[in-house]
């Protein structure tokens, strides 16, 4: 079971949080902070698993030594999955990769800004990958197809942001404070241990 999925940037700002067990908001924030402290200390060339470290409070927060953190670091973003012992470590690493690649496909060269401004969309994509803490689908094409079908449906309904509002947005869009780096999956060399297709 996956207990939580956290995405935050290099400064610990949450970009998406998804808990599959209830935690009050302040607890959620504390977990994010602790996780960030733990994960950000680590070099990029160390292993991507964190478990049962007695000296870290995060595990008592999450609920015991059965849980571990499995994470990947892409450019400015950390993708952290908190899972229990029923999940395969390498499998989850692959799943993160699938998720990020799916984001990349759906947003066309995904970058942190996409996640910032379209948190809801990211959630909808994630919902096609993981449901209630269990892996729903690992086939990227299938995920993308379902997401697109739903988006098409939304469009046919006129969408949430009707045309006028969008125009306003477009104007507002002019003064972007910064343009963050692109986290194009293709460019970053990520070593995925088992690249066999799911």
């Amino acid at each position: 079971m996956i207990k939580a999925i956290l995405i935050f940037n290099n400064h610990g700002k949450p970009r998406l949080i998804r808990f599959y067990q209830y935690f009050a908001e302040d607890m959620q924030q504390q977990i994010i902070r602790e996780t960030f402290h733990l994960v950000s200390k680590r070099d990029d060339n160390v292993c991507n698993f964190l478990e049962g470290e007695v000296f870290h409070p995060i595990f008592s927060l999450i609920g015991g030594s059965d849980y571990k953190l499995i994470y990947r670091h892409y450019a400015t973003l950390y993708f952290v999955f908190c899972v229990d012992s029923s999940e395969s470590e390498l499998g989850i690493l692959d799943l993160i990769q699938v998720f990020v690649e799916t984001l990349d496909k759906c947003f066309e060269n995904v970058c942190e800004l996409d996640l910032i401004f379209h948190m809801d969309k990211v959630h909808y994509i994630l919902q096609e990958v993981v449901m209630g803490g269990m892996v729903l689908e690992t086939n990227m094409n299938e995920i993308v197809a379902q997401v697109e079908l739903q988006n098409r449906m939304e469009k046919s309904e006129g969408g949430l942001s009707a045309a006028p509002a969008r125009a306003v947005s477009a104007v507002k869009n002019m003064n972007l404070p910064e343009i963050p780096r692109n986290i194009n999956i293709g460019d970053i060399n990520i070593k995925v241990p088992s690249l066999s297709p799911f």
Partner: protein
Amino acid sequence: MALKIVKGSIDRMFDKNLQDLVRGIRNHKEDEAKYISTCIDEIKQELKQDNIAVKANAVCKLTYLQMLGYDVSWAAFNIVEVMSSSKFTYKRIGYLAASQCFHESTDVIMLTTNQIRKDLSSPNQYDTGVALTGLSCFVTPDLARDLANDIMTLMSHTKPYIRKKAVLIMYKVFLKYPESLRPAFPRLKEKLEDPDPGVQSAAVNVICELARRNPKNYLSLAPLFFKLMTSSTNNWVLIKIIKLFGALTPLEPRLGKKLIEPLTNLIHSTSAMSLLYECVNTVIAVLISLSSGMPNHSASIQLCVQKLRILIEDSDQNLKYLGLLAMSKILKTHPKSVQSHKDLILQCLDDKDESIRLRALDLLYGMVSKKNLMEIVKKLMLHVDKAEGTTYRDELLTKIIDICSQSNYQYITNFEWYISILVELTRLEGTRHGHLIASQMLDVAIRVKAIRGFAVAQMATLLDNAHLLTGNTQRNGICEVLYAAAWICGEFSEHLEDPMQTLEAMLRPKVATLPGHIQAVYVQNAAKLFATVLQKHEGESDSQVAQETSQLLIDRLPLFVQSANLEVQERASCILQLVKYIQKLQQKNVEVAEEVTALFAGELNPVAPKAQKKVPIPQGLDLDAWINEPPSESESEDEKPKAVFAKEEPKHSRTKHTEVDEKELARRREVRKQEQANNPFYIKASPSSQKVYDAPGVEHIPVVQIDLSVPLKVPGMPMSDQYVKLEEERRQKAKAERKKKEKKKKREKRGKERKADSGPESEEDIAPAHQVDIVTEEMPENALPSDDDDKDPNDPHKALDIDLDKPLADNEKLPVRTHRPEVLKSPADDRDSESFPLETKKKSSKEKKEKKDKDRKKSKEEKKKKKKQKEVEEEPLESQLEEAVQSEEIQEVASPPTSTSAEASDLDFWLSTAPVPPATQDVTAPPSVTTVSASSAAAPDSEPEEPKETEPEDTVSLQKLSKHKKKKQKKEKEEKEKKKKKRHHHHHHHSDGGGEDSVQNGTVEEEEEEPLPPMSNYSLLAENTYIKMVYDIQGNHQDESKVVVSVIFENKSDSFLKSMEFNVLDSLNSKLQRPEGAGPHDGLTVPFQLPPGVSNEARFVFSVQSIVMPQKLKGTLTFIVKSEDSSTHEKLDFRLHFTCTSYLITTPCYSDAYAKLLESGNLKGSSLRLEGINMPFHHLLARICFHHHFSVVERIDSCASMYSRSIQGHHVCLLVKTADQTVSIDAKCDEPSLLGNVLDEIKQTFSKC
């Protein structure tokens, strides 16, 4: 209306959407909180509007704010509104928000039930999908109960997209509403073979999650999973299945054997590392579960270790990490194969990745042996020096201590070395583990007597150099060590060379800066030292030293008297006064040493940490009962006398108890003293043992002189290395000596056989440097041996421990939506999805009918049989024969869930045979076979027989057979009976004399009817020419899962029987309790030997889970027969029969309580008629009481009510009536199958007479 919409969309233009909100927050970095609070105000305004689009937009923004940590639960109702929008766009927003912030205590959730149900049945698959996704996050027990049926319908939806979501969410439903598991399970199982891989994967996922928590319930699915494993190509599914097998194999070793080959193939063939890794993991689990009898056992281990080595050597840190993790699993069972990779693991200690270093440390823990402990610890000490960062260094420190202290210091051959390691560790600055080192020092000094002299010398040095440890005292954890040092020096002060100096060190003014609890120990132990000094110097001509010491204390102690710490102050002032008084006496030249020493006489023995917990609560003590009644809230006069009455009653009985307890305590004390006297490991409190002290090998170790010029190092400490050298030398010497001896032997034995290895020395060869007693920790007498691991009572998975193979009962159907809940709908009105539970319902009722018919047939046949049998009391031969059938059948027929046994034997078959497709065979007995055998009872003399011989046979043929044998039986009858009586006389004192069994006497002849044969509950277990075993099974009220099997072993031969080992093949339900650390297949040694003709009794504890069905366990007794000139190894197979009766315990019951129990309506009834019983009624009752552990509640003429309780608290009530040779028993019990089995057993008892 149209205008309103236009107005709404114009408003919308100026509303912020999510992007605007995000942008706004980013532009207000300085006053983010303030900006957000204005946004929230806006959102509140938006939520008040009627326009659903505006609301949805607002909710979407709230979801974002929730991520930032804002509580948005106040908008829960609006979220529900958005959820119920008809537009997918808004619905999706609503469900997303709900899934982020709803939880079980959100009260609006109960408003959503109907909306969700509507969405689930929506024609649009995405509406359904979104609802399922949302529900998976916030499902509550109520929602689960109300929607379980709808979701189950969706599991057969036409769209795979919905199917897989419905399948996945079932897991959440099961968790919240465990009752749904059984009805839904068959369909879930079906989905394992769904054509869509996604659905299949989801089903595997759910079942794996379920099985992980309660694996035994899912064993019967093993064949199906096996098929999936060999056919699936989806790595994700494969990984899940392989992980599941890892959880199942410990329960069924045969499964492991079957798995090894395909797993090995996968390991060789797969290119996916994740799959390879999980395969290796499961192979390891299999190997752990298998006993070592496998032929290609070592090959598999080698393969695993070799693959793991490749992982560890990989440059990818993740693989390295996992490789080490898996390696540590192998280590537990096959340490040898891992130890050969010690180099690799030590190398990992140098890795830059801390996680990997920690894993390597874990591995080292298991790799140490007596041989390499010193070497490994030496390496670790080097790392301690190098380590930067206190956390890792602390981890190293704890690991060193763990490694050394594991399994009671098993690997330490030289405790002086260990003490010096501990002392070296005190050099660590700023470690948090001072208390850990301290407790180790204390533990070693207390428990290893021989080391005390050395330890005391080291501790004295530490005390002398205390200033080095306490550099910056308060936050320095290491000063805890001084606590231990002071205590050891004080307690074992007789070993001190110069107690004066130590005393002086302990009273330095600097001590006052130490934490209070340490000062207190200092003060107390200064007094102990003082006593020692006095004793040493008394009797000397000039008493100056003694007086100086007194003066020293009188000078220094006032400092502590002023301490702010209460404990220090109290002790100091007390001791100060004492010393002053002693000084006075000294001046008068009175000898005081003896009396002062007496203050601290006696020795402390270590007590096991769990000792307190293991003291069983004495019978009759209710810890929850009030000692004094709480003051009643209302002070009305009416209640007062009542309270007084209630107060007095228990008081009276309690005092009685304490009296008994005190006597009992005194007795126990005696027993314990006796035990301690006989225990060689126990240190007696006699002072002589303390004084007569001889530590071999201490003298030659020089305590290095203190060199104070070297700062920040406790001088003279880096000594442990010397020990390594010394130890090597010592071993070399020992080895050389041994070789010499061997050579000698060889010379003597030359030509006979070649000595195997003179190469590497084995573990056993290394003798410890000191003869060391490690004092075992004290446990309370009659402590319970079991170590029940405390399971979390709140674990939601506990509720899911449900037998899935039983057919569904009527009341288990999932609740279906009805228009008016109180009116039950007829099943036909329900949707077709209902057909499933309906079917099972019909089925089960059909089964019931069948069973009834069967019962009727049974009793008829019985009657016939009875007539034939007439006076023949017992036909051992026949019963032997029939027992064979019966053993299978009782389980078959007596238990309603026919599918259980069918599935179980399917599994057996699948496991026992080679690659036969699992679904095709049908080995189970046809259920139509009737239980003739029931009439012939479980004869005590029955021999154990091969199970496969017992293929079901037709009733008729059986009866023929029995006729055939009758002639023989008559002849044999007499003989057998004699034997039986003899045996009875031998054992009847073991019988638990329940009820009215005074009639036991076999020679009562005043009775008109035939005398009651002697009764014994011991029945034959097995017998051969050497040994005879009879057994009885008894339950115990205090532990609902344990029964005690008492077995009497009787040596029938002329030889000596020894090394008896009793072993039983555990079933899922019943397990032999083995001592901690024993494997699941290890036998238990019978704790005695048997000289010729002698018998003795041993008891074995079994844990049982379900008690509603009788059970048989196969087992073997192995023993060595030793006669004067030879000894042979023999074995004897047996079958332990756990009848349901054996789970019952004679429990008295008062008639009013009995009546209440019957009125409660919780009990289900059943009845039994016995005909042709011609024995007096009280004999009949006595038999029931005695053989079936009942007690008579009330008896009126020829009618009696009886009661018994099972170890798990089921009530069993009987109403026995008799009228001319017919006995009818009406029975009630809260567990129908238990009752059925008990009645069957009663029937058997009476069919015997």
